[in-house]
């Protein structure tokens, strides 16, 4: 079943054409990776999907329903959550609070219920708390015991994990992970690869990934899409895309084509 359809999207900023007639689709339960050199437009694709930018042309559909014109928080409500390339956590809040805050779109307590602390409100608070612990528990040992620590005091790899947990707390259908392995050593990279697999099997999420680390891409993706200067240059299994001439040219330049 097609979950996300990204059809004929073009986007330019002033005179700079960032995305050119780009189309792809993601099926439910898949892990799809978008690769490409820096400046290819990968994060722009994420920004378009989540509603931070509006495309000049084309359509984006989730489960057949168009996402165009919706505000970012509405798109999140429809079931798409993302992490950011350069982490955007709520630094002065605790780990638990970061994740609990993202449960907002699935909660309903109104002003009156909050002010009078009705049983409905208390039940919902307990549910949010349990949800946050469940999502954080996904990362097991790594974050255990740090739930009440302020996020800025956590090591980098742990902060990445908190951001993924926060995205999970919105209870999405689809996770957009922007360079989850960036800045990680080989050990941590291996952990992340495992994690993304578990997100699919245990969490049931469909995953769209932007990644530079080919090890991760190769190990985990069902499909890979290569982007260069805003255009799709290859699509298929990792092996096909990695050996595609145009892809190699994009990364390494014309002179380094492997014969």
């Amino acid at each position, binding site marked *: 079943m097609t979950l996300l359809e990204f059809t004929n999207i073009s986007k330019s900023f002033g005179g700079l054409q960032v995305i050119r007639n780009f189309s792809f689709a993601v099926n439910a339960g898949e892990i799809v990776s978008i690769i490409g050199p820096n400046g290819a437009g990968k994060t722009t694709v994420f920004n378009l999907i989540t509603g931070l930018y509006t495309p000049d042309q084309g359509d984006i559909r989730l489960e057949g329903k168009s996402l165009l014109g919706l*505000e970012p928080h509405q798109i999140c409500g429809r079931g798409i959550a993302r992490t950011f390339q350069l982490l955007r956590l709520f630094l002065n809040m605790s780990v638990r609070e970061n994740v609990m*805050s993202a449960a907002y779109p699935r909660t309903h307590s109104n002003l009156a219920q909050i002010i009078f602390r009705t049983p409905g409100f208390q039940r919902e608070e307990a549910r949010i708390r349990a949800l946050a612990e469940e999502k954080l528990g996904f990362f097991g040992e790594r974050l255990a015991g740090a739930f009440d620590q302020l996020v800025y005091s956590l090591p980098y790899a742990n902060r990445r994990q908190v951001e993924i947990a926060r995205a999970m707390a919105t209870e999405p259908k689809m996770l957009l992970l922007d360079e989850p392995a960036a800045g990680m050593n080989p050990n941590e990279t291996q952990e992340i690869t495992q994690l993304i697999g578990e997100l699919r099997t245990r969490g049931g999420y469909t995953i769209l990934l932007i990644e530079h680390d080919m090890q991760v891409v190769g190990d985990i993706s069902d499909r890979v899409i290569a982007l260069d200067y805003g255009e799709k240059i290859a699509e298929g299994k990792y092996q096909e895309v990695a050996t595609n001439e145009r892809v190699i040219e994009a990364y390494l330049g014309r002179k380094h084509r492997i014969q």
Partner: protein
Amino acid sequence: MASPPLTTRRDALTRALERWNALPATARFFILLAAAASVPLLTSNDYVIRIAGNVCLFATLAVALNVVVGYAGLLDLGFIAFYGIGAYTYAILSSDQFGIHWPSWASLIFIGLVGLVSGFLLGSPSLRLLGDYLAIVTLGFGLVFAQLALTLDRVELPWHPGVIINLTGGTNGIVRLDPLSFFGFQLHTVTHYFYALLVWLALVLIIVHRLNQSRIGRAWRSMGEDALAAETMGMPTRRLKLLAFSCGSAIAGITGGIFAAWQQSVFPQNFSTDVLITLYAMMVLGGISNLGGAVLGAGVLAIAPELLRSPELARLIFYAALVFGLLLFTRPRRNGLLVLVSVIGLGALLRLGVQAFAPDWLSPPTLEVAAVSVSTAIDRFSQQFGIYVQGWIVLLKEPLLVGNLAFAVMIPALLALSRMKPGRIKLLLTIPAVYLLVFVWETRLAAEPAVTRLLLIGGLLVTLMIFRPNGLLGRRKVEIV
């Protein structure tokens, strides 16, 4: 060799503060509430109770402003207008201006709605503005309100030509307002209104605290940290900002209504930009996004001007604060005692020196008689204490020039001192700095208390913010890691 213990040295004061903070918030709230409620029982001086009422009034406004500025991050410079709208609405509904005399409960609920709606109306178009631009727009709104309050005493409706309505009373305001009355009981003394304001403050604190501990409070804080990330995580930032804005304005409105009933009148100058600035100072002083801070800041800035009005009380407070500050903010604490003793010694030395070489510079002790007395016992004690201090310090016959110079030197000296690394030199330099502080106090205050009152409040604010740049109870926000 054994390594030093990892725990910092804690003495009685720090331990007491820790035990205080360890109490659950509810317990602390009730203790402070009980303490505040006992004020009218401890003194029958109406002046004191009026000050306490003012503290409650401004604390409520500061808390409401905190919701708008601290939680939603909206710089609203027209906030005072909502306070004024509430007050004027009460005046119109409960006076002979139009012969309307609504019951209090109806007025207050209606005022709450009016506050909510006006906050919504101002907020809606301005929320797409960011930061400084929002500040300018809201400032404009505040100024428009002030102007309307002044000029809506001659309103001519286009469909009733020739009929002139006096809506706001112009410069003369609206007077002879109905007092508040609930369940047949009419509030008519300062004490009654103090309790009404205290109850209202407590209610507001509870409501805001509960909002804070909910999904809305979490969303507000997330927005304050990173609005884009919050929006992407499903939080409707625009709606939440509007909510904060409207909540703040509704609370301000109702507070204005109670204020109008207390003062039994409303005048345009009650809602001037001066009041807004004082309000902001209270909130920032206490620490933005901190409920306790807002109340504390309001307390400091509502009480300080009054204290400084009475030279006796001001003197006692000053010296008490000085000694307290020395003992509290020096580590180890006995250093503070050392500084105190050295200052006394230095003072005595200087005095003896001047007495020996230029005795005709000195003047005998001068004493101010209090215009408003807080308590005769305090006055007498303070005057006696004053005589001793003025006998110890170098009190000049011509204090103006030297006093002004000393004041001009003192501020940068204190600034420089606060920037120094702790150590022997800093300790040594604290001694003449403290002496200078006391010298400035005795010379300038004795000369012109009315003029220096505001100067001293300004100095107080500057000093407090230097030593606690995030406000008295604020916490440093970590930005980029």
